[in-house]
Structures are given as C-alpha cells and as structure tokens.
C-alpha cells in the first residue's frame, strides 16, 4: 500500500461519481497533512453501502462499521483519542434511514467529528430502493409505481438539531468539494457535509443537478436566518428551485 492508495480493485460502477469523491477525499487528506495534521492522526469510518467501499480504497486509519452506525463509532474514536481528526463517511440510506438518530444526537452534542454524506438519494448497493431523501414518486425496485413518501431536507434536520457547521457540495465539482472537506474537518465541533452525488446506474440526475446548482456567494454563514433561508431553498424534490452549494452555516459552540 502506497501513500493514500491501496491494492484493492475498485468495484464501483464505471463512471460512478464515487470516484470523484474519493479523489476529493485524497486531496483533502493531503491538504490536511500539508496543514500539519499527521497522517497517523486522520481516521475515517464508513457505513454500509456504495460509499463504504471508500474504506478499501483509501489508505488511512479506518473502521468499516455497521450499516447506520458509522457516526457512533466515529464519536467513540474521538472520545478515546481527542488528537485524532475523525470523519464519518456515510451514505443516505445509512444516515438518513438506519442511523438518523445518531446524526441528530452527534449534532446536538457538538462533538468534534465530521460527517460526510455520499448522498445518491437511493439504496444503490441493494439495487435501487428509495431512501429518506429520494424525491416523491421515486421508481425503484421496492416502489415500482413510485414512492408515496415525501423526502426530508437533511440540512434542515441537522440545523434543527444544533449542528454548528452545515455545508453542501457536489460530487462532480471535486475541487470545491475538497475545500469543503478540509473546512469541515478543520471546524471545531460537529460538521456536516452533504455531498450530492448522481447515481449513474439507478438515479442519473446529472443534468438536473448541472442545471440547478450554484455557489453561495456573499452569504453570511454566521447568521441563522440567512442560513435557514438558503437551506430551505431546495427541499429535495424535483421542483424548479435552484440548489445552493457551499457553507450554509458555521458558528462556534462549546465542543463535547
């Protein structure tokens, strides 16, 4: 194993944006190391899903956790050794379905870990079922006539739970994503980075995202009101609204 790479062959679908996120993660890890964080002090955890394969492809200290439980395991690592920089890498099924309560409580206690969500808005590894953030009407293998459930807006959920760093990136804007990962990790307290990721096999919304996304500019991320305004702009449906990217909210609060 050399540098940040492992010998493990990659089994993501060809063209999967997970490759881009992995690139951004490596870039972020290198940047952190350049900024003085020892490589040995970087740790990440993963849940179960396509995102979880990152464990096998990124040569850093890591724990391939149970489905939905990456956030608790990350917190245990941080509590045991506060010198470590800990990233909980999770999928949308992993964190918005199975392990949602852990997300809320980690945000509430403002523990100094970073949650990075690989959000492809469906359960892909089990061959496409709807998740808590799939748009209403999502046609998947368990909802052949379309899902009848409304998605929730995860940024709003984390905001309500008291998250002190809330950001959104896009998998196919890897440079910006790398910067957001670094910012999230360097934030003192709980940081939440949602990564929108088209699922090229089961939910290919690349065009939709390309058309809707825009960068937050001149945004006051210390303002609750401004943050909520921007968070509310897109509610994870297929509507007309634009999708802001960047840091929505960042404040300093006592850390667990």
């Amino acid at each position, binding site marked *: 194993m050399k540098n940040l790479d492992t010998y493990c062959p990659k089994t993501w679908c060809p063209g999967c944006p997970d490759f881009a996120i992995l690139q951004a993660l490596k870039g972020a890890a290198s940047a952190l190391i350049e900024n003085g964080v020892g490589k040995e002090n970087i740790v990440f955890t993963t849940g179960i899903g396509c995102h979880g394969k990152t464990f096998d492809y990124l040569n850093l200290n890591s724990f391939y956790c149970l489905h939905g439980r990456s956030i*608790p395991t990350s917190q245990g690592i941080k509590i045991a050794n506060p010198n470590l920089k800990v990233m909980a890498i999770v999928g949308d099924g992993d964190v918005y379905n199975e392990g949602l309560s852990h997300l809320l409580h980690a945000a509430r206690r403002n523990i100094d870990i970073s949650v990075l969500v690989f959000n492809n808005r469906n359960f892909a590894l089990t061959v496409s079922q709807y998740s808590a953030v799939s748009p209403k009407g999502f046609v998947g293998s368990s909802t052949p006539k379309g899902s009848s459930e409304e998605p929730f807006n995860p940024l709003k959920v984390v905001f309500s739970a008291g998250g002190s760093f809330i950001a959104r990136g896009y998998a196919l804007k890897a440079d910006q994503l790398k910067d957001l990962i670094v910012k999230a990790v360097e934030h003192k307290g709980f940081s939440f980075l949602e990564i929108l990721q088209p699922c090229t096999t089961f939910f290919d919304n690349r065009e939709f995202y390309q058309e809707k996304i825009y960068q937050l500019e001149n945004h006051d991320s210390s303002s609750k009101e401004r943050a909520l305004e921007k968070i509310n702009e897109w509610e994870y449906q297929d509507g007309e609204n634009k999708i802001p990217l960047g840091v929505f909210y960042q404040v300093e609060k006592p850390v667990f």
Partner: protein
Amino acid sequence: MYMKKQKNKKSKIKNKIVTGRKAQLSKTSLKDYSILIGGAAGQGTRLAGLVIAKLFGALGYHVYIYEDYQSLIRGGHNFSQIRISQKKADSRKEKIDFLLALDENTLQLHKKNLVKGGPVIFNSDRIKTKGMGIAIEKITKEEGGSPIMANTALIAAFAKIVGIDFKTLKEVLEKELRKQTELNLKIAEKAYNSTENLVKISRVSKNNLLLMTGNEAVALGAKNAGLNLYFAYPMTPATSILNYLAKHQEEFNIRTVQPEDEISVINMALGASFAGARTAIGTSGGGFGLMVEGLSLAGQAETPLLSIECQRAGPSTGVPTYNLQGDLNFVISAGHGDFSRFVIAPGDAEECLYYTGLGLNLAWQYQTPVILLSDKDVSENTFNVDQKVFSKIRPVAPLLWDKKGEYQRYKITKEGISPLAFPGDKKAIVKANSYEHDQYGITTDDEKEISAMQEKRMRKFQQMEKEVEKLPAVKIYGKNNARTALVSWGITKCAAREAAENLGIKLIQPIIVEPFPRKQMAKALKGVKKLISVEMNSSGQMAKVLNSHGFKVDAKILKYSGRPFFVEEIERKLKKII
C-alpha cells in the same frame, strides 16, 4: 396531649421488656440475625439499612443486604433486609428477628415473618401498634432536623435497643452521614437516650470488612484493570454502575458517556476500543438485545469489549426492579455468525470485583467480546468484600505490534491473535472491518481468504477454551465427596451454598460459562450421582448449558417470582427430591 401519649408508650415498652422478652431473646444464639427495615419510596430506608449494616460491620459481623424496591419514585413499599452473621451468609432468611417500620404498610406486610417475640421498632408518630415505638419524627423536629433525618433517630434507637454503644454509633454516623453531621448526631443522641436496651449484640471479631454492592464492585474491578471509558444508557439494574462511575469520574480518571441509545453505546465503545481505550458498557437484557448486532461486529472486527449485562425479570420490559436469571442462554449465543466470547457470571460482590477485572483483561488479551452476566440481586444487593481481592486485579497488557514491517491488523498467527496497533501510531495504518477481510483488513470475498480468516479466529477461540481451564471457572462448596450436588449460578449460589452446607451436600457454581470449562466441571462432578440445578428462571437455563456439554442434570429447582431463593426454601424443596 401529645407528650402524654408518648409517655404512656414508653412505659408500655418498659413493661414489655420486664415481662420476659429480654430473657427470651438472650437465650437464643445471637450470632445470626435478620433485620428488616421498610417504608415508602423516598423515606430513605435504603441508606438507613446500609448504616445499620455498617454498625454491625463495625462489630465484626458479616453483612448482607437484600434490596427490594418497586419501579416508582415516591410511595409504594421499599425494604432492605439485612443479614448479620458470624459466618459468611449472603442470603436473606425467611424469618425476621427485628422489624423496623417507618410506615404502617411495612408492619402489615412483614409482621407475619417476625420470629416469635421479635421486636417491632416503629415510627410512633405514624404507627400505633404494640412494640417499641420511637417518636422519630418528633425528635427530629425538636432538634431542628429535616424529615429525612428521622432515619437517624430510628437507627440510633435501634442501636440502643440491640446494645451497641454510643461511641460505635457515633463513629459510623460520622462516616456515613457526611452532610449536617452535627445535627444528625444531636438527633441520634436524643433518640438513643429515649429508648431502652433490650438485648446485647456483642462484637464478634476485629474485622471490619468492606461493604459494597455488586455494581460498585463491577465498577471498581474494571477500574483496577485499567478501565478508561464507560458507555451506558440508563437501564435498571445496571444504571448504578453508570451513576457510580460518573460520580467518581475525576477520582478514578475514567470518563463516562451516556449516548442516545444502546445501539450507539456499543458502536461508540467499539470505536473507542479501536482507538486504544479500555472500554466497558453496561445494560440489562432489553438493552443488550439492541446491542447484539454490535456484539457480532466486535466478534468480526476482533475489537476488545467488556459488556456488562445485569439481568432483570423478563421477557421484554418484564419486572424492572426484580430479578430472574433468564438471559444466560441468550448471551451465550447472541450475535449472528460464528464467533466466540467469554461469558462470566459472578454471584456476589467479591466475585464481581475479581471477575470484572479479569473480564476486561480477557477482552484485550483475546480481542473479543466478554459478557459479564450479573443479575439484579448480585448488582444491587450489598455484600462483604475481602480487601485482598483488590491486589489480585491488575491491567494485563494485550499483545501489541512490535512495529516491524508493514502493520497488518489481522495478521494470521499460530494462536490466532493478531498484534494490536492504534490510530495515532506513525508507522501503522489500522483498518478494522465488519466485512470479512484479509490480513490488512481490506474487504474480501475470496474463498481462501475467508477460510483462512475464519480459521484464524477459530484458533483464537481454541486458545480461549484453554485459558478458561486455567482460570477459577468453577467453584465448589459444601461436602466435596457428596453424591448429591447442586449446581447454581449468580445470586442463587449464595442461598444454595448455605443449603448445601446445612444438608451436607455439594454445591457447584459455574462462573465462567462460555467457553465452557468442561474439564473443571467433569472434575467437580466426580462421584456425584445426582445433580440438581437451582436457578431463578422457568426453564433451567444452566441445566440446558450443562446438558449441551454432556453433563446430565437430574432435577431442577426453579423459582421465577422475581425474588431470590431463601435457604429454607431450597432445603424444603430438596428434601422432597433427595
């Protein structure tokens, strides 16, 4: 008017003593007593019971306190039943020698169990009955104390009645009642002087043995074995471990964390162990049920974990503040997939102390889950503990990586144990995996690699089996060459031990139950023709374990009312069988 009434009472008591009760009691052997103190929740009977126990501890007696309480905060009926004896006796007797009643309910519920002529010492401000009424509330009020201090008055009056000198009383109160000590002593003195001496319970030895609950012993055992972190979600009867450790966090240098649920508890703990912290978690059966997927993860990722399971009456929510030993078969087999674990079931506080320390060490030596299976009575009752046990508990270092070559978290070794390294080590990349993995920890579905890793873990389990035979896994009490033997575990071994000794038979107590100590059990059963399991559950779970290992259990004595066995009860049932 009120004063007059009191005076009448006092003279009545005097009359009673004169009319022969003193003579009657002093004839009996005074070396084994049963004292029951009861009241409503919130009246402080538990602390009062503990202080009384410590009074006798100061006189060199062995002490045991059975706690009986309901799942409520105020009202209801709580009691502590204290056994004081010259010989070690960690069970309660059916009969009560002294009944201390803070309320009417206590009197009505327990007077039927009072020995003939046994005194009732009661709060005469609340109860009108025959016996030794003490105006504890009035005395407390007169001295300017708060209502809860009426317990001090009752304890002091009782001390006088049983002939404990005021000096001893004062010393114990000063130690136990740290808040408003002066005021408490004033109340104690007044109450002490307000009553008569009835019997003389004299000092029996110079020993003043330590007293602690099983849960306190669990906490101390883990602490002495180097515990760093304790994660728990509140659940009776495990909660007092969390509370005790939280209270002593700075002193013990152990951090306690109360996560959002038991699933988080176990997954956080595994993260912490992975990062190198010696970690324990605690819960009861329901919480343990939620943790089971995490237990399997500990098996697969080979992450050390001490899991304390304090049983209570089940199934499901069951009877939260009462006991059943109904989780043995569950914890032995909990978790999907093949992995081994240690299951250790201590039966009193001293065993909790020693075996919790052992358990934490085993978790790290074998990088596997260790389940310490307690039960409500072991957890919450108070026992004597031999100070010397502390010196037997030391942190045992796990197998650590020698920092040579490239680190492999799951290195294939002869004994199946792979050296540990932790994140933060400059030379190592540490990868722990819930998936099957290769030696580096990278996920695999290769046939050969899967088999090799399963075999590596199996070799480790074989080492665990060998280890168990070297440890005190099975204890024997009573007559060693008896043809009839009882087998009991957890709290039940306490009453069963006395019954076995009284009847001249043998008691076998399996303490480490998984991996099962076959050799030790075979040795314990040498010459035994009839084996009877005595357990607090409705199916005979230890009997099932024994049968599954080829040791035939001939009969079962089971109790499943939530209350532990009385010695007399076991003896009666045994006499029908043998």
